[in-house]
């Protein structure tokens, strides 16, 4: 049997949502595939695989990235947060509460990426204007909501997070 390049797997270790995982991956394996298929974290969705739609956004060492544009080997040793890591047990994160309250989602497919991008945004800019919210949300495509619900939800979450602080 011929051995092809794909069999040369590399060992990686990552912490995802606070849990340490060890994996054996081909160098070409996408981070999004690693999260979804190897770790079973199917909350991260793949919408375009070329870095435009933002559905696959996760946090790597605190920065929002497109997981379809990274290889799993590139995050060896990194701390990753996915949508599954937002809630504390059964207690939803204020962002999730706000999206529920303000109809910030319909089909839910873009939502994990929208939430992760908004999480980073509100951490770095806790008191944003509506225009800033729109500019940031423009990194995620949504085909259901017309963005109105998303913008309202992020603004409401900002208010709630401010009040809780």
């Amino acid at each position, binding site marked *: *049997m*011929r051995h*092809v390049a*794909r069999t040369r797997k590399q060992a990686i270790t990552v912490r995802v949502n606070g849990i340490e995982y060890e994996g054996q991956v*081909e160098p*070409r*394996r996408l981070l999004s595939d690693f999260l*979804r298929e190897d770790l079973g*974290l*199917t*909350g*991260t*969705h*793949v*919408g*375009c*695989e*070329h870095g*435009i*739609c933002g*559905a696959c956004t996760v946090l790597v060492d605190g920065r929002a990235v497109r997981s379809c544009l990274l290889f799993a080997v590139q995050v060896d040793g990194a701390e990753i947060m*996915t*949508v*599954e890591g*937002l*809630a504390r047990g059964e207690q*939803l994160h204020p962002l*999730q509460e706000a*999206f*529920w*309250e303000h*109809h910030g*989602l*319909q*089909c*839910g*497919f*873009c*939502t*994990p990426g929208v*939430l992760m991008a908004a999480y980073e945004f509100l951490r770095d800019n806790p008191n944003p204007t509506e225009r800033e*919210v*729109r*500019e940031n*949300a*423009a*990194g*995620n*495509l*949504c*085909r*259901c*909501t*017309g*963005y*109105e*619900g*998303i*913008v309202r939800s992020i603004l409401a979450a900002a208010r709630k997070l401010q009040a809780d602080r």
Partner: protein
Amino acid sequence: MPKWIGQPIKRAEDPRLLTGQGTYVDDLRPLPVLYHAAILRSPHAHARIRSVNIERALAVPGVVGILTPQDVLEMSDPFPVGVETPVRYYATATDKVRFVGEPVCVVVAKDRYIAEDARELIEVDYEPLPAVVDPERAMAPDAPVLHEDIGHNIACHRSLRYGDPDAAFAEADVVVSQRQVFPKYSSTPMECYAVIAQFNPINGEYTIWSNFQGPFSLHPVTARALRTPENKLRFIVPPDIGGGFGIKSSMFPYIALIALAARKTGVPVKWVEDRLEHLAASSSNTDRVAYMEVALKRDGTILGMRQKLIDNVGAYIRAPDPGCLFRPLGNQVGPYRFQHLAVEAYAVHTNKSLTGPNRGYGCQHLYFNIERLLDKAADTLGLDPAELRRRNLIPGSAMPYTTPTGGIYDAGDYPATFEKLLELANYARLREEQARARAAGRLYGIGIALAVDPSVSNMGYVTIAFDRKLRQRPGYQAKSGAAETGTVMVDARGNVTCTINTCPEGQGHETTVAQLVAEEFGIPIENVRVVADFDSNSRAWSIATGTYSSRFAAAGASATLLAARRVKEKMRAIAAHLLEAAPDDVVLEDGVFFVKGQPDRNVTFRRVAGVAHWNPNALPPGIEPGLQNTSVWNFEHAVAPDDQDRVNSSQLYGFVGEIVAVEIDPETGEIQLQHYYSMHDAGRILNPLLVEGQIWGAVLHGMAGAMYEEMVYDENGAFLAGTFMDYLCPTAMEAPPLTIGHVEYPTPASLTGAKGVGESSSETAPAAIANAVADALKPLGIEITSLPITPSKVWALLREARARQATGGQP
């Protein structure tokens, strides 16, 4: 006072979707081992396949097998088509490829990476052929022919006449005409197509997991192609689908394709479409060339209309097309009362990708055609566009109103609703603003578009594609109906489980059904659970099942409500027996059955449920144990077309009126949407949160088609919009400033009183925006007749106009 219905209830679906716990097809692992497919697709717009060599690809370790065009010919039949022309459309190309992206082979391997590696090693020898992409060019006698056995490119042609259009035009003071071009675009749901297929060679059953949205009339179409009886083709749909918008109606050829790959290779196969595949080869609406003519009296009264519609259905016509032409037939006159209409309808093949329903299905075209034409007519007559429309609206007193094409407008008051829209937009003030802007040399425009918004398609409309003489032949099998089913079960503790078959794609059906059923039973909404996944093996379903044509709030919701009412009647009979009263004297309020006027003679909803399950012995004579009901809701007027080509193509008709104000940058051509007013009659509003969400989304889709999105091909059929860098979806930055207004004229045709709202503004936005831009550019003598209106297009028009002015009108 309703407790749940009409309230902005938060969605039952959201907690799972917000925490990453949704279940989409790609998240499923229904079998211990799945193999993965990669599809080899045509790089040519038009080419003969001389040979296919899969040897090197098969030798790649991890490859299980490859489905070839030869296999497809041997294992399957062409999909039945909805036209008289015998178009042979298979799951892959067989003799020729006819558009860029057409499937040719399917590689099945241990994982997708290996499958894609091996796909690169398949050798196909193509003989390129001349291509045609323009529908009018494709109709010319010397055009390249896609299907040689047919000999021309016209898939369907119907001449429809209502009233006496020739007399109307002869009588006219003024005739206004316009050639218009409507673009090919798609709602591109964020989740692409996904299929898992298993074939069991022992019993011959196919099991399919997919994100198919219906209509399930396409299930038998798939079964026919697979040469299998319907009851051996099992469709399973998970509870979560990542958007549909009609685009996921058209995935059935891929269901057949992956089913054939599973059968050929003997393993279960999973295929998840990537975005590049989706843009090139899933589905879109047709592009249309229209020749529109309207006959008017000098006072603005419309006497009649002629519509020549040429729809580009791509390389193969695929059911339910030519619905692009005929889905709106019942509302082909819009909200206007003219009686004389001629429709010359063509569906034409070209070397572009295939088409099908896309949010609005035919109506975004129709209202662009009518409303653009009426603005030109108003201009010709020197009338305000609002005044021209006002003079032609069907009066509220005429409801229910039968249109000349056979539509039955069930409820509404268009003139009153239009006045409300003008008020909402403060139209007079907007015109003043425009006058000031123009005086200052700014390009400011106001556009109006009105639409009768059809919902719940009648399966019968598709047969308009057949010549009426054919429909009258003995043995012809007519089509009609729009039924949906729903099931309600009450368990022994009085909790409720509803199962729906609608295959929702994010519309919140679980929430709405829970509202309706909680209201009906007078119980807390938390006690109602709604199950929204689907399995054709175990659900009561029918041909019309699914989510499309804005049908849920009237069809699926009515079926489930009817089931709840029937369960309630049974419980009332049991309660009456327990209370030793006559059933007619017993009422249910807030979860308690009691004798009218004697509230202390009562028994709880929960207690009655317990008796029905735990103690059948205590039931009244003739009452069976248990509490469950499956009901069907059909529509009285969902009948087949008559011998005059009239058909009530939809079962309910809402109303949408929109006013848009734009300002155009004279230097860059950029269009700024200053105001967007949207007025709706969607009948009774079941959940205002969900209704507004649908309208926001619909406006954005329509705006995208008007200003951004187009599936662009070059003249040789090369596809130029194959990524989201090229196919430009609007973002949060482009979303218009939207003001929504509502009126509610409940329909008698559904049990809920609701009409549809899912498509609504996607039908009017292209026309409203086009009219606003045309109005802004009118002082420069510019006419807008095609979409999308991009800044570069506006810039070119501005440049031409200035050149014309500089040369005093000389070219």
